[in-house]
């Protein structure tokens, strides 16, 4: 028999209570996994999206909400002429509720720009030219909207025919509705406006040269911001909001978990007052009793964490297939998130055990045994 045996015995002697506490923690941790997994997945999918499209620098006005504010398309001409820029292309991208799907990325891309070149036609064809009233759907977008070539899709005020279904090699691309910039501007009433200028740089451009370029863009477009593609996600307000929301909701779930474990451990300590008195009478150090209680609550947290990760993983798998999420992001459930979540659960356990442990160590052996 070791202290661990004693700790485990403490948990299994009240299977229902231990079970309910585990359910409580695991729901909290599952929430962490699902929310943070989505937020991270969103970011990761975006990074991959930019990467696949060959975008090195993104120019936008990041003061908007989830999507940046629109600005005048004429800026592209000036920015496109700056040194080290190989190619530039304008985009008007918005998150719109399209028919039954609550949120879809609708991406109006300057005709013949490099962002079209990555798309592979799976079915049908590409639009004939920039002015044709036509759009293509990413594979997942087609599934989510249940549309085939020949159907039409309502974008704001306009009915636009689907002429093709494309594969863009990244979840975000495959989940998007893609059309030419001028059609998008007309449909959304944003004539002459864009909200992103994507730049491809000359190969072998150094970090210093990129920074210099960003500075020059800032001069041309003071309220805008030029960002290296890999930094876009980290600094954009939309991602920051998503991240903050997922963590703050997680924090709530964690607080509920702490209260649950603390309640359980306090009950355990009160219920075992007599036994703790016996332990003190046979010579146990108060420190050992503190360890016993803390190990017990840490183990409770750990088991809850493992159960929560499992639950959260299942939740993510289910969320992944819902129309609202599908095609927008690929949830990220990597070892890092699993490790962090189980870690949080153990910390929750230990923190919740601190007060009960302190209480138990202050018991007077004679009172505890007789009272």
């Amino acid at each position: 028999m070791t202290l661990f045996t004693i700790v485990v015995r403490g948990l299994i002697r009240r299977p229902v209570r231990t079970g309910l506490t585990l359910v409580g923690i695991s729901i909290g941790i599952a929430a962490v996994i699902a929310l943070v997994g989505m937020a991270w997945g969103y970011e990761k999918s975006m990074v991959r999206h930019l990467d696949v499209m060959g975008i090195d620098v993104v120019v936008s006005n990041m003061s908007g909400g989830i999507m940046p504010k629109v600005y005048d398309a004429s800026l592209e001409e000036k920015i496109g002429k700056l040194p080290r820029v190989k190619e530039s292309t304008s985009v008007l991208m918005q998150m719109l509720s399209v028919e039954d799907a609550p949120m879809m990325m609708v991406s109006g891309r300057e005709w013949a720009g490099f962002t079209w070149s990555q798309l592979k036609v799976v079915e049908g064809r590409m639009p004939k030219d920039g002015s044709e009233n036509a759009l293509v759907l990413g594979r997942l977008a087609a599934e989510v909207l249940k549309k085939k070539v020949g159907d039409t899709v309502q974008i704001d005020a306009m009915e636009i025919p689907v002429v093709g279904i494309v594969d863009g090699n990244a979840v975000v691309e495959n989940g998007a509705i893609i059309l030419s910039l001028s059609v998008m501007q007309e449909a959304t009433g944003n004539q002459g406006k864009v909200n992103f200028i994507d730049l491809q740089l000359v190969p072998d451009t150094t970090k210093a040269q990129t920074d210099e370029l960003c500075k020059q863009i800032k001069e041309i477009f003071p309220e805008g911001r030029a960002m290296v593609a890999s930094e876009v996600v980290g600094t954009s307000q939309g991602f920051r909001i998503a991240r903050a929301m997922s963590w703050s909701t997680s924090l709530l779930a964690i607080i509920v978990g702490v209260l649950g474990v603390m309640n359980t451990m306090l009950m355990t300590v009160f219920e075992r007052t007599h036994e703790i008195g016996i332990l003190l009478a046979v010579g146990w150090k108060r420190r050992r009793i503190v360890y016993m209680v803390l190990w017990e609550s840490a183990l409770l947290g750990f088991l809850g964490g493992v159960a929560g990760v499992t639950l959260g993983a299942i939740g993510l798998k289910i969320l992944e297939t819902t129309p609202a999420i599908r095609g927008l992001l690929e949830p990220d459930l990597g070892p890092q998130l699993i490790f962090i979540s189980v870690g949080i659960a153990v910390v929750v356990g230990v923190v919740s055990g601190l007060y009960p442990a302190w209480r138990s160590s202050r018991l007077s052996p004679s009172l505890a045994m007789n009272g």
Partner: protein
Amino acid sequence: MTETLKAGSNELVYEAIGLKKQFDGGKVIALRGVDLQIRQGEFVAIIGSSGCGKSTLLQMLGSLDKPSEGVLNYRGKSIPDMPDPSDYRAHEIGFVFQAFHLLPTFTVVENVQIPMFEGALSRSQRKERAVELLESVGLGHRLNHFPSELSGGERQRVAIARGLANKPSVVLADEPTGNLDSQSAKSIIELLLQLHRDLGVTLVLVTHDLTIAERATRTVRMKDGLVISDQLSIPPTDSP
């Protein structure tokens, strides 16, 4: 009695001078100034009517509660001033209670190992020692039973084995036969006497049973929180 004469010259184990204990801010005075000396190897029976402070005195001796006033030393060291009395409880004394006080969710052999967590034994040594102790109290065949599956006498044997876990030099027993039928009581007393004789432990035993007190080397009689008589043996006329 040669044994008592020998005891009289032995090392002083406990010394109480003017020991007082009150509860509830002075409303209850359990000990009113007890003076007592107990020497190595003695078997001291403490008797007296209910409520006279016997258990309170034993709890002070065992450092389970602090005196309100007075001196209480164990081998020359003040018990109330011990910085960590758990060492004293774990290694110097063994407790045996009327209500057994075993841990219900642990088996017999596990209960006996509980105090050994404060010792230096390895896991397997702890188990080994617990088995030996249980065999010596005649419970070698009950190792993996839970306390609830044992008779009162058997439970008290487990408690005695647990009390001996860390080889204490003193055993403090508070009415160890109080919850037992006369047959079990008799065998528990035999067991305690055997420990006293074979291991040389100092035995302090609270009892209501004068036939038990007769077998002690010394009898301390208490009344209203005071020691009223202290004799090397009870005169035969005192027994019922």
